[in-house]
């Protein structure tokens, strides 16, 4: 790989990866770190990247997975919970509450978090998510239902 390729890749995909990481992590510094980590992975998996019919879709997936892993990081989760306690006294938590969203994504199983990000954050429909994940629409629907149940339970715990 030549440095020009790396540059081209950054220019083409970098801003979109950064935007996506910002949307999931809701923290500028973490998003930038995530972007760099994603590109390190791209460079290390360059053959896979080049073979992808849609590199953008591939990047969506690995950025989502990386960011969800970040959210699961114990330290970060503790920070979010601490921040969240300051807000929940006066607000009804909903999934549009970014801290609540982050907390829920950090808590649920990875496959549920993925589907939730694509559905709620990216506004993809179930067919699109199924195509992106290489699974069936039914599976996506089931995971969304599981996520809703888990989210309601987790949010209820917060206000209890």
């Amino acid at each position, binding site marked *: *790989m030549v*440095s020009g390729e790396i540059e081209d890749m950054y220019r083409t995909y970098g801003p979109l990866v950064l935007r996506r990481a910002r949307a999931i992590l809701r923290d500028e*510094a973490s998003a*930038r770190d995530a972007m760099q980590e994603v590109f390190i992975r791209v460079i290390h998996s360059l053959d896979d990247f080049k073979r992808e019919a*849609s590199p953008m879709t591939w990047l969506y997936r690995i950025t989502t997975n990386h960011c969800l892993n970040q959210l699961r990081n114990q330290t970060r989760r503790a920070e979010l919970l601490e921040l969240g306690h300051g807000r929940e006294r006066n607000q009804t938590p909903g999934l549009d509450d970014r801290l609540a969203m982050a907390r829920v994504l950090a808590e649920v199983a990875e496959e549920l978090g993925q589907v939730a990000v694509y559905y709620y954050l990216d506004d993809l429909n179930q067919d699109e998510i199924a195509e992106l994940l290489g699974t069936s629409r039914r599976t996506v629907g089931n995971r969304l239902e599981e996520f809703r149940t888990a989210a309601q339970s987790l949010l209820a715990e917060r206000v209890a």
Partner: protein
Amino acid sequence: MSFEESLPQRRGEACLSDLVLDRMIVGELDESGGRAEHLAGCAKCSARLAELRLATPDQLFIAGLAAAATKTARRRRGPLTAGISTLLVAAAAVAVIWWPRPPEGTRSKGGLTFEVVARRQNGVVAPLLPGATLAAGDAIRFRLSSDVDGWLTVIGVDSRPSVTAYAPASGSARRWKAGRDQLVDEGIELDDTRGQERVIAVLCARELTVAEVVHAGERALARAGDPAAVGDLGLGCHQASILFRKAP
């Protein structure tokens, strides 16, 4: 308020997702398949497409990347910036830059691996590969891996023709401990000299002066007549180099 009611309103079924719009932006999808017609008739989607395009200015992104690179370098390697003395070849200082692994094409000899990392004026930070082109104002730093301890000097041999000491700038060669991926303190901002330049790292078992290495470079350049043809400096030391081109 129910769970679903707490969520933002979803896009219309016919509307284009961000993923589709992103793929259009990078050229993976064109405007066929009804997308052009939809964009022409849907103010929401066309506005979102414009928003996504506006949200991706290269310069802002690249500046962020450089900042992230600096932060990662500090986190992974400790306070790299502490005590950095930047050598000015043309003018300004260079930020700490970092890259995760040696690129293909790094020249190695005698247990010494030498890597040049460049930060271009547009902010892009990337390892330099042999034969790459840089411009005046671009900045470079050096990273080495070596199996042995020694005394390190880095010089640049260019097309003027001249030889410049990059690290250290003068005095004695720098004491260097064996190790992987160690960054040399100095950063260099390239001047407007055009043509090829060979940056040479010399790791010696004995304590040379920088002047000795520069003179050896001058002799080698005189013999070769061209930075591209400069080979062994005849110092009996480990030596590694990379050749690049400077354009306006």
